[in-house]
């Protein structure tokens, strides 16, 4: 059975206040083309469909377009909600969609949703686990102690009867690690604020393939068959070196899994350029790459420049970020080489000498110094 594993679409996302909708439209079209060519039996969408809980109208339109195209193909579609989606909203119409072969698991209602599909080799059980938080799981397992995400997922899996003789696939959207090793992270993922959300990959040992979403870099966790599909587009400058792809899986008999990555083409890349302004706007430099790419520009000019952004945007219309890296800014620390606690300990006399010099341009006379010393002593004594 052929499976196509994608995830983290983040439809409607804005990166540095630029809308990525056009890019997303294009890449989803590409994905539909791949599906039509490869004809997978099931398309697995592993969460983070939208970027916000209440997505914008254009985003909903785009997803509607995508889903309709999907339904026209012969593949079944299984999708779950991620941490960016609003579970209830994504769950809308799921029972009606089921008849069209589209299974949506938005909310968690105590049990895993299961879809059993047959192929010539037998049944394949698909389990859908939407993004859960421990607090949402606790009400269903009152007799168990659920302190973190790992406990929650374990309790859910233990309550399920998984027939190990058959092939089992699970679709989940969590932060999974393997024996404590932290996987590759990027800036565009959002951490759960204030919680410990790591889940060990060992919990999914009974499943032949674990289709994960959440991290934006395509990678395996622990064993080959536990994979993140990765995001379909680059969404931050930390992903510059990623190659975005979709994952094709071939399920043979029990225990045989073949995996292949199909690259996704893109129109505009994420790049980073660095140098003095004058150099960067020269035509031969501009033509080195696609001038319409999304750029993070680092200017190394030492002197202050007037309206750098305007000048850059005239050549590179999609400059997203502008930073300066020069002697002044790098490692700039206040002129006072002491830290605040040393400042408080610094002799008032020295402070006053510096201050005097700063204001008058000359040093104090001996007489003045004596007077100030006396004054400091008296004030200190008076204070105590």
């Amino acid at each position, binding site marked *: 059975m052929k499976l196509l594993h994608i995830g983290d679409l983040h439809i409607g996302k804005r990166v540095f206040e630029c809308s990525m909708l056009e890019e997303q439209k294009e890449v989803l079209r590409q994905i539909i083309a791949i599906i039509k060519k490869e004809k997978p039996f099931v398309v697995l969408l592993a969460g983070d469909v939208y970027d916000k809980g209440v997505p914008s109208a254009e985003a909903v339109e785009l997803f509607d377009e995508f889903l309709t195209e999907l339904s026209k193909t012969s593949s079944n579609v299984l999708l779950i909600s991620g941490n960016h989606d609003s579970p209830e909203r994504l769950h809308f119409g799921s029972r009606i969609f089921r008849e069209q072969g589209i299974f949506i698991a938005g909310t968690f209602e105590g049990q895993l949703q299961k879809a059993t599909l047959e192929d010539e080799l037998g049944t394949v059980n698909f389990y859908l686990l939407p993004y859960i938080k421990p607090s949402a799981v606790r009400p269903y397992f009152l007799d168990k102690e659920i302190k973190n995400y790992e406990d929650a997922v374990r309790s859910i899996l233990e309550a399920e009867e998984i027939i190990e003789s058959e092939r089992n696939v699970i679709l989940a959207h969590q932060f999974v690690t393997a024996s404590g090793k932290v996987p590759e992270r990027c800036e565009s993922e959002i951490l759960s604020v*204030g919680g410990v959300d790591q889940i060990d990959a060992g919990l999914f040992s009974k499943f032949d393939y674990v289709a994960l979403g959440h991290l934006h870099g395509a990678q395996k966790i622990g064993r080959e068959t536990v994979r993140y599909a990765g995001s379909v587009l680059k969404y931050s400058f930390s992903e510059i070196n990623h190659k975005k792809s979709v994952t094709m899986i071939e399920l043979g008999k029990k225990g045989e899994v073949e995996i292949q990555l199909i690259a996704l083409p893109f129109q505009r890349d994420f790049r980073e350029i660095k140098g003095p302004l004058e150099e960067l706007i020269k035509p031969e430099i501009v033509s080195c790459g696609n001038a319409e790419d999304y750029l993070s520009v680092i200017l190394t000019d030492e002197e202050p420049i007037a309206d750098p952004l305007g000048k850059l945007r005239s050549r590179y219309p999609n400059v997203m970020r502008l930073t300066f890296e020069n002697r002044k800014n790098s490692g700039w620390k206040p002129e006072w080489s002491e830290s605040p606690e040393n400042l408080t300990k610094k002799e008032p006399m020295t402070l006053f000498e510096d201050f005097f010099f700063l204001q008058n341009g000359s040093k104090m006379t001996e007489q003045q110094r004596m007077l100030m010393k006396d*004054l400091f002593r008296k004030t200190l004594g008076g204070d105590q």
Partner: protein
Amino acid sequence: MKPITLVMNAYGPYGGKVEIPFEQLGERGLFLITGDTGSGKTTIFDAITYALFGMVSGSTRTVNTLRSDFALNEEKTFVEFVFFHKNERYKVIRTPQYERPKKRGNGFVTQAVEAELLLPSGKVITKVKEVDEAIEKILGLDYKQWIQIGMIAQGEFLKLLNADSKTRSDIFRKVFHTDFFLNIQQRLTQELSICRKEKEAAEQRLLQYTDGILLEEDSEKKCVFTEWQKEKNQYLIDEILTLLEEQLEEDRIVEKHWENKIQQYGMELRELTRKKAIAEESNRLFIQLDEALKEKTLLDEQYDKIQNKKQRVSLSKIVSEKILPLKQIYKKSKDILEREGLQQEELHQKLSSLNAIKLQKEKSFLQAAQMKEELNKFIGEIATLKERIPQYELSEKLKQERDRLSIEEKRFIEEIKKSQEINETLKKEKELRKDIGQNHLSCTLSLEKKRAEEQKLKEKADALSNLISQIDHFHMEEENYILECRKYEMLDLSVAELQTKCIEEEHRYLREQAGVLAQTLQDGEPCPVCGSKEHPNKAMVSKDAITKEMLNKMKQNVSEQLKRLQEAGNHLAEKKERTNQGKKQIIFDYNKIFKNKIKIISLEDIKTCVIQEEQETGNQLTDNAKEIISLINQLDEILKEEKHLQKVEKMLLQQEMNQAGLQQQLQEYKEELAALDGRLLTIQKHGEIKDIKTAKQELYLLEKKKSEMEEIIKTVENEYQKIEKECYELKAVLLEKDRILPQMKSEYQLAFDEYLDALNKCGINEEECSNIEQNKIHLQEEEREVEIYDQQVKECALLIGQLMKQTKGKEKISLEEYFNQIQILEEEDRQTKRKKEQVTIRLAQNLKTKENMIHAKNDAEEKQQRFAMVKELSDTANGNLAGKQKIAFESFVQGAYFDWILYHANQRFGLMTNGRYQLKKRENAMDLKSQSGLDLDVADAYTGKARTVKSLSGGESFKAALSLALGLSDVIQSSLGGIQMDTLFIDEGFGSLDSDSIQQAMQVLAQLTEGNRLIGIISHVDELKRCIDKKIIVRGKSIFGKQSGSELEVIV
């Protein structure tokens, strides 16, 4: 400072008691307080601030509005806050001032402000002021600092951002304690004003001294000086000094000149006076001579009188020397004689009286002898009595012992009786509890029985529920089966269709064969079918002819489908088998349980029966349980009774032992008593026993009488003996006196004769003699007069002789001329002296003035110099330098802190704005008029320029303010060491951010919590609700649509 629990009662919008367990939210991380508008989110932060400092956060709410209007009248308003600080646990409770109705009567009474602080040591502080101070000391922050760094309140965060230099300076002063530098500034200002005063005083003094300058009248100098005095220009003082110098020089010269003149005059005067003295001297001698001659004549006149006196004197002398002593001797002996005679008479009288007394005394002496006999008798009695007394004492003691013992005996008898009574009661109790053993046994048995029953019933119930689930399962299976049946039917239909279609096609095909065949037909050739050679109407090949392959395929398809149908049919049959089996199983189980009690009709009936049975079983179980409980209770009681019985038996044993002991003691006492009685009897045998007291008294009286008698006897004897002695002595004296009388008489006669003789010799009689005696005093006077006269005469003569010699050859001289000369000279001298004096005075004063002035001038110069120096320092320190930026010393130091704050703030601000903005301190003031040094600008990377912070938008301002507050908090903690801000609260502000900015802000805050910090956020923004797991949701509670205060819910 980590909050642990917060309890609010009737506070703000919370009508009842509300408790927030902060510890459930963990020790670090973010938590969110969210809810409807006006439901009481900010109140939670207010409550914490109020509990700690007695004041509320923000400047828009006041302390008097704290009591909840939703509260019932009896409810007290208070806030209780428990927090951890440096691993110590503190608890503070505060009550604001509010009005509540009186507990008795009508009207309202004001509940006063109260505060209470419980320290980890257990000590409690209860006065409001003390509590405030204690908390400030514990936390190291006061209210102002707290609202800057611990709590970023709604609308307040912009204040720090948009404040001007001065306000910021005030805030920093409070937070970094830079008042030391402010003090220095103020002290310098003070010092400056002191210096100024001194300088002016010195200058004033200098000018004053100039008043003491004396210059020569009508001189040029005086004009110049008077001119100067009109204005008293300080800077011309030097010239005045030179004037003074000149004057001094001149005066010195003049003075010398006069000095010389005076000396000259002096000499001349002395010469003249000498001459005058000599002349006077000689004149005087002449006068003296005249006087002496006069005196001599006087003396000569007195010569005769003096001669008489001389004679008288010599006569008196003789008399006193010779006659008077004799007279005295004669008088003395006469006296002695007379005295002797008197004495003798006295002595005779005395003797006679003494004799009378002596007779009396003899009588009493005889009496005394008689008394002595009685005395001996008494002595005997006393002795016997003394012997008997100790024996009496012994008998008394014995009697006492006996009494005591009899009392003890009685006591023991009583005790024995008592113990016997107790025995009786105990035995009765023992009787009552005879049957306990039996009860115990029966109870345990029945308990076991009931327990067994319970077990059985439980098993039954389990079986029943099992059965029910089986039935359900069976139903489900049945349904599935029906579905499958239907599917099968559909499939069947479709297959049938296909088949008919196939057949049709086959027919078609076959028909087509005709066409195909027809194609090969040629006229003249026989048709293979009918054999005719003519083919008028050939069969046509239809357009959509179906090939054999297609037909085969179809057939295959049909067969496939048929196979499938069969499969489905098999499958269905299997299923049916299974369901039937299932049903059988159920019926079997049912029979097992019910043992065919009721006739079976259908599964439904079975189910209802089972349910019923289950219920019954359930009831039975509960009944059983109740019985078991009651049995257990019974058992407990029985056990209690058993224990009591054991105790009783023990006590009984003890009593019996006691009794035995008592009996023994009683026996002992009785024996002792018998012994005592025996001894008493022996004593009585010796004689009547008298009371000791009376015996002693008798003894005492006897002894007294004895001593009295002895005394009387003694006195009488003594007196008699004394009298006898006196008589004897007197007699002896008398004899002696008689003997010497005649001797005295003869002596007297002799003396008298001698005296008469002497009188005759001088030729005077006794009268004259006595006269002379009386005038002795006058005698001495006259003698002296004579002497003086003689001396005077002698002296006079001598003097005259001298003077005669001295005045030989001299004459009187007139002194007139001398007088005149001297007078003139003296006049001139005086004048000169006066002039000189003037000059001297002037000179002295001027000298002194000059000294003072020079002294004062130096002083003034010194003070001026010092003033200039201090002024420079003060201006620098206070930022008052002209033409330079007005930065005070304190601001300068604060500027350093400010740099650090901005450094820390920029790290976060850059993150939140994707590196676009940085906060910067304004280097040069916009104007040189107002105090500067702490102004804030924001540097925009996109434009490369810096502009004022007031140009930031609302959301950007919030980011800037948040970064600034966090930077401030960082620097405060690192510089002040002791302050630990583990908790931070942010009230609103996130509403003005778009979703990307919210994500960035959340990132920044999430970073903060890594340092073991707890950050609380109040916001109503949805994204935060989703992102943050730990929440406190505040709802305005409404019962039946009426608002009655808020309530909250904690989600972890």
